[in-house]
């Protein structure tokens, strides 16, 4: 078994809210691993905690009002990220673990050239001279497929389109050849043809540089095309975790089932005649008031008494792989006869 590159155990990140509505338990006991060179997809809707999880890994959570609870454990290449000194942590950020965000316009500094911003990481982490760093920046622009890199290196973000800015962000992130790239909704704000370009680019770079990618998204199509394994999050917890093919072929958690049924699909026949998508009734509960028992039970078509009373742990779904390959947080695993929807 390969040693995981990143190991997250029982991560809990809570936020104190202003009006005394209590604590928002945005991430409430999340565990997963990222193996070297693989793409892990983290899927969920808004409010599930996926972005807070990714920010917690690099300790980018603003300390009030948020805090990572003691008992959380994040290990990168054997080192506990949560106990590192600030200086040591900075040496990892941008260097060994890099992150790209959803909105390239607001993540890039409008008053610096694109070249300066890419070079910055090289200067800080690799102590390159400004000239060497600029050469490096041009190389990176070429790597991410920006035409005329010698010219573009002196352009400002506002002179570029959304797709190009995202490529610049990727260049910035990869300049130090990190082992892990955390990509938080990298294509959500882009047009679909540009999204295809960026996803293809990420695939190619991953193969060339041998890095692992943690791909956070709400788009099941993106995950199906790019991820090796998938983690599904709901209400601050991991509810299902499986290799991609297994997850889509045999979704076991009712939430995953519901999500897959809610998505209108290009490969389905035109639905004009019957006209209904499955949908999931109700809405995501507030992080300050997770339901008792299983957090999904108010919206679950199969829920019974046990679900209302007792919160299920992550159970092994078996399925022929090594133990732990496919895990599900649902009592249906212990009582499969209950998998009949209520009338």
């Amino acid at each position: 078994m390969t040693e995981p590159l990143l190991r997250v155990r029982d991560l809990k990140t809570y936020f104190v809210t202003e009006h005394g509505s209590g604590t928002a338990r945005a991430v409430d006991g999340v565990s997963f691993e990222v193996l070297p060179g693989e793409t892990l997809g983290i899927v969920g809707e808004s409010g599930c905690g996926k972005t807070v999880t990714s920010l917690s890994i690099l300790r980018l959570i603003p300390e009030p009002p948020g805090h990572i609870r003691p008992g959380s454990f994040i290990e990168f290449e054997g080192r506990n990220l949560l106990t590192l000194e600030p200086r040591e942590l900075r040496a990892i950020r941008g260097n060994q673990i890099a992150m790209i965000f959803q909105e390239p316009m607001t993540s890039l500094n409008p008053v610096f050239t694109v070249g300066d911003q890419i070079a910055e990481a090289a200067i800080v982490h690799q102590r390159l001279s400004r000239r060497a760093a600029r050469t490096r920046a041009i190389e990176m622009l070429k790597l991410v497929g920006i035409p005329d890199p010698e010219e573009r290196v002196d352009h400002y973000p506002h002179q570029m389109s959304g797709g190009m800015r995202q490529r610049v962000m990727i260049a910035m992130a990869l300049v130090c050849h990190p082992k892990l790239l955390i990509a938080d909704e990298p294509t959500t704000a882009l047009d679909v043809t540009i999204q295809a370009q960026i996803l293809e680019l990420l695939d190619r770079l991953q193969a060339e540089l041998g890095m692992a990618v943690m791909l956070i998204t709400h788009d099941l199509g993106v995950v199906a095309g790019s991820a090796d394994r998938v983690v599904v999050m709901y209400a601050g917890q991991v509810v299902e975790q499986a290799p991609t093919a297994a997850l889509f072929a045999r979704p076991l958690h009712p939430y995953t089932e519901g999500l897959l049924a809610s998505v209108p699909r290009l490969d389905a026949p035109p639905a004009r005649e019957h006209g209904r998508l499955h949908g999931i009734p109700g809405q995501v509960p507030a992080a300050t008031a997770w339901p008792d028992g299983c957090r999904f039970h108010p919206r679950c078509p199969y829920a019974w008494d046990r679900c209302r009373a007792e919160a299920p742990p992550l159970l092994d779904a078996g399925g022929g792989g090594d133990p732990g390959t496919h895990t599900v947080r649902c009592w249906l695993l212990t009582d499969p006869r209950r998998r009949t929807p209520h009338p």
Partner: protein
Amino acid sequence: MTPALVDVRGLVKHFPGERAWLGLGRPRAVVRAVDDVSFAIAPGQTLGLVGESGCGKSTVGRTILRLIEPDAGRVTIDGQDVVALGASALRALRRRMQIVFQDPYGSLNPRMTVRQMLAEPLAIHRLARGADAERRIAALLEEVGLDPGFAQSYAHELSGGQRQRVGIARALSVEPQFLVLDEPVSALDVSVQAQVLNLLADLQQRRRLTYLFIAHDLAVVKHIADHVAVMYLGKIVERAPAPALYSGPRHPYTTSLLSAVPVPDPKAQRQRIVLSGDVPSPAHPPPGCPFHPRCPHPKKDTRCRTEPPALREVAPGQLAACHFAEQPL
């Protein structure tokens, strides 16, 4: 054949670009946001209008309603020419056509309660007052799947899906025949999106509504549209009944667009066409065919660079603006 409820002919909207000389000179470049767009929608049907950012689809929606004044063209709703109307006739016609916006956060007035938002159109058109209005408001809320108790809430107390339902209720309050839906589910989570799409389908059946569904998500449009029109740089490049468009697209842009959409099935082995280059800006459209710089068609030639292709019928009911539409990708 039933006459169309909505008939758009030659719609044009240009926006002047920046002016040189501190605002006093001639405009620099003209943004041809909508460049000679025509289509018709039969009553009770849905036309999906798709395209990427900058293609002009939102402008089309707003221009039809005269929220933006068109520069040229004719828009007929149930026989009445919208463009030529004066102010008071236009106000009366507004009852027949309404719009639902994309942003559930921005499209509701933060200082009004739901009740006030729904009562306003009733007051403007003198449809109901007092207790009568209260009844209608409660009925509207129920119709869109909201508890009538939400009437006293403010927008910021509601979730995205709930706000969008309020927006739909507001549009329905004047009993329109025609609804422009401008990316109505794009800002919503997937599970909420499904709920709202189902609601829109139910409403269409129950109230016999006609929809212009503007979206960038082709999978969503496939689910709800009878006909689809694809826009690129202000022009319609393909228009066809939905089954024909999705199974046999005739324009290379449509084909590329369809292949770029990620499908939630890891086993789907698709020949992905990845276009090179960016979505061009409508201020500087390329000469000839607007798509030619990015077009992957193997037969692309000088004609594509110089001669803009006309939107012509290449199969029954299916139109495409491509010199090689008979030999699709």
